[in-house]
């Protein structure tokens, strides 16, 4: 189940994203997995998500995979220094990732899409606070990787 659920989630979301709803759900998934899972597991899911997305959208095969894995890495690096406790920091991470991904892949930047992604991520933050709130007191906000 540990493998099946994320796999189906990635497969389903990349299908929905490329067929019916052109919203970058996989970006949210990469951010959430990056916060909730340790390396190399989070890298694996980011990589697979990118590959499925490239496959379904006929993009340069492997390109999104490289971008998603890099996002995951830099998010882990970012969490070493900064906290994601505040909704503004979560929003900042999402907006930067969304703009960067759109710019790198030549994807259209849509305000409504960004707002929907922000709403989803903030909802996840309120439902799964433990993913965003670091529990390391004195050490600051470092995440145990």
């Amino acid at each position: 189940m540990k493998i099946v659920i994320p796999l189906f989630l990635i497969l389903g979301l990349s299908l929905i994203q490329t067929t019916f709803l052109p919203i970058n759900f996989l970006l949210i998934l990469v951010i959430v997995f990056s916060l909730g899972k340790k390396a190399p597991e989070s890298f694996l899911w980011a990589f697979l998500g990118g590959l499925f997305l490239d496959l379904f959208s006929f993009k340069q095969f492997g390109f999104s995979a490289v971008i998603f894995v890099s996002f995951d890495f830099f998010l882990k690096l970012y969490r070493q220094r900064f906290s994601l406790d505040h909704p503004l920091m979560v929003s900042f991470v999402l907006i930067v990732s969304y703009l960067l991904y759109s710019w790198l892949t030549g994807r259209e930047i849509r305000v409504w899409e960004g707002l929907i992604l922000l709403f989803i991520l903030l909802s996840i933050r309120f439902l799964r606070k433990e993913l965003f709130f670091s529990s390391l007191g004195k050490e600051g906000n470092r995440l145990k990787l």
Partner: protein
Amino acid sequence: MKLPGKTIFWYLVFLLLGFSIIFFNQLGWLGWWQRLTQPTLISLHSSSNHLKNNFNLFGDATRFCSDQSERISVLEEEVAQLTGVLSQLEACQEEIKATRRLLGAPLPAEWQFLPVKIFKIESSFFIDQGKKAGVELGWPLIYENVYLGKVIEVQEQVSKLELVSQEGSKVSTKIKSTEGIQAKGILNGLGKIQAEVSQILAQETVEKGDLVVTAGDESIPPDLALAKVEEVIKEKNEVYQKAKVRLLIDPEQLTIVFLITER
């Protein structure tokens, strides 16, 4: 601000794996994979595009909510079979209709065409033919005598398009007035069916209702229809004037279009 060595190691492993895939794909070593997956994905995207254009929420909801009985399931099976046949017939009919329109269009007799299916994924447009059908970069895409765009990327069984309607696309054009005057300009796509023709010399006469056609270059044939002028924006002491135009065809509504293979 240092990450554990294990994280850095795995990041480099996945990065290397990703770049290897890109490299092998560039060399064409993953052609077999594209040949294997693309036909299924093309039909998936064509069906989803078709569904999106004919979405019926009420019909779908009642279908899911209706009681299941043996009689209904037998009938549904028959209906499903017939729908399959019908959709095949519809596809043929659509192709015949589009071909008839093309035959009726005022285009040179020596031009050769390849009928292709067009579909949209996120904000990009694709056609269901690629290297296998001999598609080449820059081939123009038309519907009747209306220029839609050109091929900018060719894969095994699909090709990516740059349409006139897409944001950032530029096509050199002529604006034909009813009196036969031809002004030159550049058509810039703005997304959807609105566009703008810029760099029209201020002394040229452009009016609402004038027809915008392609000026022609290496890859785009001349005199293919593009749009109609809706509004002319002229400012004092400016060298150039602009025109807001409406494209003649919305590519999102099309299923069968034609590539010009020889001219």
